[in-house]
């Protein structure tokens, strides 16, 4: 819910700031600040995380009326690891146990290059209230780091209990934290629409599907499957774009 609030406030601010003028120069540079809602999909969602806020920025270069290049950095962090709420069955007594101190989080820093291909009528680009739909595709490197800690070791024999043949699980025997990290090559594609508020300012809404070549190892004792070779996620994103002046 908090994420949506942030997005709504950002959108409102951007709309209020929109000046009203027009220009038709395309060979120019701009900046883009983005805020997004990230939804893991496929194995990453089923086994690991459900959502994150993504934020970042990019430098935009409008090559011509048809396309633009963006050099983007963004960052996100998942903090809602499903494994934190999962239980394992201890072989010694066949009972299920949870790991109260467990923690799973994944941080992704991405450096990307996007190609934006504009669609439809391009005659009013950079005019106030002009709308420009586009498709976007690109690739780059995503540095991810997935850390899981605090899991009670299910392979333990437990500790002896006086007067009982049955050992008791020792919750202090935990697995060492495991960090899986990689600079993963990734590709993405999507579509969006840019709404010009002035000749050098616009609002940009984008939906984008991301593929990262990477691995998250399994933890089948907790019912968590591994994910490989692709980690996939969907982005719903709003951005503000500022362009250098179109007057030359």
């Amino acid at each position: 819910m908090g994420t949506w609030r942030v997005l709504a406030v950002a959108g409102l601010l951007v709309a209020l700031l929109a000046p009203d003028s027009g220009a038709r120069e395309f060979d120019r540079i701009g900046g883009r600040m983005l805020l997004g809602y990230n939804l893991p999909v496929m194995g990453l969602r089923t086994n690991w995380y459900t959502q994150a806020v993504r934020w970042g920025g990019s430098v935009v270069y409008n090559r011509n009326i048809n396309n633009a290049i963006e050099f983007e950095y963004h960052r996100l962090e998942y903090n809602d690891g499903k494994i934190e709420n999962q239980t394992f069955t201890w072989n010694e007594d066949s009972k299920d146990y949870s790991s109260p101190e467990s923690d799973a989080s994944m941080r992704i820093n991405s450096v990307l290059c996007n190609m934006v291909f504009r669609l439809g009528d391009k005659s009013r680009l950079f005019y106030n209230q002009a709308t420009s739909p586009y498709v976007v595709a690109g690739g780059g490197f995503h540095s991810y780091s997935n850390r899981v800690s605090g899991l009670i070791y299910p392979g333990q024999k437990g500790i002896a209990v006086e007067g009982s043949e049955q050992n008791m699980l020792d919750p202090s025997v935990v697995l060492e934290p495991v960090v899986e990290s990689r600079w993963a090559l990734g590709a993405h594609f999507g579509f969006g629409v840019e709404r010009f508020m002035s000749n050098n300012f616009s609002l940009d809404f984008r939906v984008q599907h991301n593929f990262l070549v990477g691995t998250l190892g399994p933890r089948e004792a907790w019912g968590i499957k591994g994910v490989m070779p692709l980690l996939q996620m969907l982005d719903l994103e709003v951005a503000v774009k500022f362009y250098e002046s179109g007057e030359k």
Partner: protein
Amino acid sequence: MKKCVLFLGFLSLCTALALSGSAWAGTTGKIVGKVLDQNGEALPGANVVIEGLNLGSTADAEGFYVILRADPGLYTLKASLIGYQTESQTDVRVQADVTTEVDFTLQEATLELGEMVVKAERPPVEVDKTFSKYIVGADEIEQLPIVRTTSEMITLQPGVHLDGSDRMRGSNRPGEWRSRTGGDVAYYVDGVKIVNSDGAGSHNWKAINRSTVQEISVVTGGMNAEYGNAQAGVVSIITKDGSQNFHGWAEYRRTPPGQKHWGANIYESPMHLDKMKWGEGEWQNERDPETGRLVHQRADYDEITGHEVEGNVSGPLSKSASFIVSGKTARKAPVYPSGTERGYYDDIGRFVPSLNNYQGSYSVTVRASENVKMKIGGLFEYNKKFIGTDRDSWRNERSAGTSSGVIRGLYDSGKNIFLPEDWSAAGKMSTNHNMQYLAVTHSLSPRTFYDLRISRYSTVDDTSEIAARTSDVRTDADGWFAVDREVRHYQVADRKRYQVKLDLASQITKGHFVKAGFEFIKYSMFLTRYTGESAQARRLEFAGAQGVIGDPVKPQHLAIYAQDKMEFEGMVINAGLRLDLFDPVSKFPASGAYAFSPMYNSPLRFQNAPHREPVVFKNLSPRVGVSHPITARSSMHYFAGLFLAYPDIYYLFNGDWRTSGPDQDWNGNGAIDPGERYNAMRPSYPIRSGQGTTEIRPEKTVSMEVGADWNFVQDYTGAIAVYYKSAKDQYHYHSDVRFYAPHRPGWVHPYARILHNNGFEEQRGLEFSLRKPLSHNFAINLAYNMTWAQAGWGNFDAWFNFLYPDSMYIASGRYWYEYRVENGVEVPVPLTVEQIREIGHTANNAIKSIARRDGNPGGRGYEQTRMTAREYGLIGLDDFELDHIHVWARGYQTGLNADGGNIRNQGSVQFLYLTPGDYGPDFKVFGSKFLANWRVNLLWRMQNTGSFWYTPPNSGRERRLRPIRTWTDIAIEKRFPFGLGRGDVSLFLEVRNLFNQKDDSSFNTTDWTNWGLHTARPDNSHFLLYGDTADRSFYNHPRRTEMGLRIQF
């Protein structure tokens, strides 16, 4: 060297005799097109020539012209006709076995006009491509200097395995356990096959300096009929010809000191547990009482600087002759302490500790006339190392170094880490590859030519400084770390291959390009390996003619083929047929079972066992491919073909013998003479005591592929292919043969395993590539392959074969089980009358006891049949033996022992960016604009690291994938042109494993699957005390930086 000179002399003589007048089949391309006027009318008689090659053609009545036998490269093509303006098309790219189409439209001119120059457009797709093929030209190799070897460049092509294991699309590596062949990929250099089917599983040698490569063509989806003895694909490497101007190229590369592995310094590694006692004076100052040497000395293996030099020179010898010579040597630092603290990275990136190493090539090209091109050349590689370190000779050599006290390294749980530097207990070994060839192309007419190639390729392994004996293992005072000792180990192998290949090619009509020819290979090989595993245990493995050590076997292989490339309007059909005849020549044992008979159970005795004439394999393999355009920028292709592979010659003739006692001094002279050597050896039991086999067929793969190429925008071309391969009759050591010795009726008779055709494999896959050649200052190549693979053995054709002598055989004097020594030689002790009676009785009872049980109950039954050797069809026995040796043949079904299948992913991305020569502000460094002439190479690779069995708690076992590994390299280079562009000097910096990626190579897969563990379990006592003992076990080495200088003129 003398032999090389003699052979080159012989080649020259052959040439002189053969020539009366250039392109090699498979090594040259074809240019076709039309010459029209501005109205679209044909211009018969127009001349089209390739500048600089002295090749040309005249347009026929329809304006059609064809130029055959053009060497790969970039050319200018010129069309002219009197009365018309001459037109030149530059940057015409010719590729081997590819038809390049170049059309001309000449403008009528009444006045003498200047030449019209047009830059040829690269064809969006190759419409004559009937199977997946990827071609890399010299210009692309030059633009990607981060790829340092020819082999590495090959691995980056779609479908080729990235690990350099000579595999394509899930095929087998040479000598793989389920396919004892020379490998599934055939390699050719300048049309000469690099024969590998005699190397006992050696990887294919292809140490060809990349700076001399003109073109690499990688075929993964099928093969023309001219290629054979391979089931997956073919790689054809064409080397550069010498130039008519002097050119040179040289590169020096420096690797700074530093640790090249993960984890702690080896001398402080957790792997040693509590055995390292640094700081304890007594331990640290301990001296070997025998040698006085300080026992615990650290090697400064991480403080060594690496150097590598490669270069080539080419130039004219005369107007029609030119030469090129190249060489490369390296002195790199080892990753871990090793026998010697220097070495080199071999052609597939493995570090080989080596005393010295060099590799190179040389060639002289003579264009004797317009119709004749001749190339005499050679390739060589030499390295010498301490025994125990080798990884590229034949398969098991390095096992000598794995035992205690042989060579410094990590073997034997790190106990060998303090052994001396520049030393091996077993001496030194050298490997020498040497190939010489002559290639002649002679045009018989403008549309017909032939290629003749004669070659000799030898691989020689030899051992020096051999120890006289194997002494006991010695250790330090703690009884843990090994101290030097003597190990008797030697290896001698001499593999020679003589080849003649003749190809006749003719553009019979406009639509038919027909090729036919033959390839003849004569082998001569022997291989002997002796390992004194301990003072008592010794092992002898060898391949020799009729079991004679050092006597070469000389199989021969003849292949005849014909193929027709039919190029019609809108469709290309490429069909061919190949006939292979493989003759092992040398005799085989009638049955490997004789090695376990009491009469023939040593290497010397076995030579007298019944032998048979070899079987000659005769096999046909048809292939057909079709391609057709869909649009002007897209095409599709379809291919189906049968591919065969014969066994590695070593596995046809090998023997494997062991003993735990000393050889016997028969003549009592106090020494083991040559005639007494190995007399205590007995057949190795039960593994692969092959003793040769002929009861086999060639391996067989049916391959099918559908693919499409699409030039979807600008010069971006994507290719996709789906394929299915079904491999049957794959070799597998499974069945066994035994000899029943009736004098030991209660004995469990050992058996020999021999090659058998009961392996199978199946692969389905998807391959994708994206290519954008260099334009707009950047280039991208992307390759991805996903293969679903399944393999296994069994179900069909599995059998036992037990030999039983009867009482008549026992009484015939052919059976004995004791020897005595007379005059220094052993002679059999004949059976007594009583023994004959008793043993004969036992023998007959044993034969009678063989139950006859036919049928196949439950799908896993067997049938047992008793018959005489004559009825069975055992070849090589005399008439008496045929009737008195009985065979118990047990055919049975094993069920399909498939490995469950797995998915293999791999991919790579190559990215190149360069700045133009005049880019940026006018700020100059050494005469070059600072921002100009920069080149950036980025190379990313990804690969599955294999699969494993996992059993979930509530279901049956499943095949699971190990994690992927990825690695990224980057190279940044600044070029400084000099001499008005006649040459340039480059400074470069390369960073390997840019992101310091650390992918686990060694972990417990069950613990990883259950708990995500990469290290030992948290309650593991060693882990708790010492930490992770496998702290260095990762695929990628830590980030490594290299820098260097490159010069070319």
